[in-house]
């Protein structure tokens, strides 16, 4: 019987989440600090190199350009590092899975949760502060939760798919490496979306990270609100990817023990 939600699942995710936080991010204060500071440092490097070209698209403000880059980096890092860390988690747990019946999804879910937790604790205060500085509107800060929810669904959905695929094919990490390169390049992290040719832009807009970044930028850097239609699209894409991930995982899980 393959039930989607195991009664044991929540507790197992909980202990594995704590284990990851305590071991991988030992002295988690440093981890949190790192996740806040590293995109800041990268954003300032981008600003130094591309600032004089791209600042024109941000009202000639280098700070606003750097803020836009920070948003792009925060989003892409959460997605890429979260999924990449979840990818080998089931295979890594194979020793235990061969001895005890543990709900498989506990491994990718707890890994994403642990990475996401320390990432968000580091970046969300920065994003919130930027929002308040640029808009002065606390409602905008609260609204950040909407694209972040879409990002969470997207990350969990993809994490389920890649961690499951890794069980069957051990070269998935290399292939996923290549895939993340494409995802990074097609995301407007350091370039303004407006410089992309319209016909290419239509394709880039299919990248869910693209939508999430642009929505966050509207909320954080401007006083206007994203269009309702695009917000619905972003959430819908996130939910779709999550649903596909859950379905794919349910289809794969019955065959995991053959491979582990």
């Amino acid at each position, binding site marked *: 019987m393959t039930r989607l939600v195991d009664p*044991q699942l929540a*507790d*197992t995710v*909980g*202990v*594995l989440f*704590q*284990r990851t936080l*305590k*071991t991988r991010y*030992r002295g988690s204060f440093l981890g949190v600090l790192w996740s806040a500071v590293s995109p800041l440092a990268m954003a300032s490097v981008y600003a130094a190199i591309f600032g004089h070209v791209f600042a024109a698209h941000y009202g000639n403000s280098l700070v606003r350009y750097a803020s836009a880059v920070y948003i792009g980096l925060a989003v892409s890092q959460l997605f890429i590092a979260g999924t990449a860390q979840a990818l080998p988690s089931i295979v890594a747990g194979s*020793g*235990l*899975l*061969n*001895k*005890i*019946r*543990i709900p498989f999804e506990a491994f990718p879910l707890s890994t994403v949760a642990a990475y996401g937790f320390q990432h968000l604790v580091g970046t969300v205060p920065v994003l919130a502060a930027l929002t308040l500085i640029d808009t002065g509107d606390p409602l905008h800060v609260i609204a950040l939760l909407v694209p972040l929810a879409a990002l969470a669904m997207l990350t969990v959905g993809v994490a389920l798919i890649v961690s499951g*695929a890794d069980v*069957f*094919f*051990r*070269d*998935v990490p290399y*292939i996923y490496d290549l895939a993340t390169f494409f995802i990074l390049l097609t995301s407007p992290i350091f370039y303004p979306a407006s410089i992309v040719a319209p016909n290419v832009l239509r394709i880039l807009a299919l990248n869910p990270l693209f939508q999430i970044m642009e929505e966050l930028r509207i909320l954080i850097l401007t006083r206007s609100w994203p269009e309702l239609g695009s917000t619905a699209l972003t959430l819908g894409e996130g939910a779709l990817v999550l649903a596909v991930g859950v379905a794919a995982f349910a289809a794969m899980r*019955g065959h995991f*023990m*053959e*491979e582990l």
Partner: protein
Amino acid sequence: MIAFDRVRLERRTREEHAQDLKARLFALVTGRYRTPRRKVVLDDITLTVKPGEKIGIIGPNGAGKSTLLKAICGVLQPTSGSVRVDGRVAPMLELGAGFDPDLTVVDNVVLYGVLLGVPRRAIQQRVDAILAFAELEDYREFPVRALSSGMMARLGFAIATDVPAEILLIDEALSVGDESFRARSRERIDSLWNADRTIVLVSHDLGTVRSICNRTIWIAHGRIMADGPTNDVVSDYIRSVDQTAIALLLRAREATAESGS
């Protein structure tokens, strides 16, 4: 209660399978892909274990003993036939499995307990008792990597036997720790024995099986060779092993005689 009804369990043989997406795609495209061969690990196993029974499982290496335990605890699903298990199953893991060396002893107790299926709240309340039994109260906040292997074995034993499970699965090695701990673990095992707990013990140590189990199942090539009172089954098993050994010896002697003539 454990009920196996005509259980057959096949596993894929490892070596023939390309666990590589690129290689697999290439093989599919060029038409060289062969479905991997499968090996029968358990074949037509039918058995019933009543609550409170102490069962020994014996047989040569690769006979399917550990697979049988995995089927009982739900790690492996049968290819055909049915497995029914009523009650919580606690597998006793070998030394160190299930522990994270970097976590503290207390965190590991909770981790291990939850992995064995105990609700987190429940295991948190048992931490003190478990550490007391393992004589590790002074090591609460030490990382497990700082424990000696004997201490680790004590900890694992203390947790596994504290789990409120109706069925305890033991694969080999019961002897843990030093003399004083062994005496007390013996006591705890005896108390487990006397309770209604079902125990399935896989062991090559026929002495242990004799002293603990009232019923024994002998498995070879994934099939049940004998199932009955421990003394009868163990004697049959020993006789068969001896006969095989003698047959081998005779064959070897014939071979040398032939090559000599």
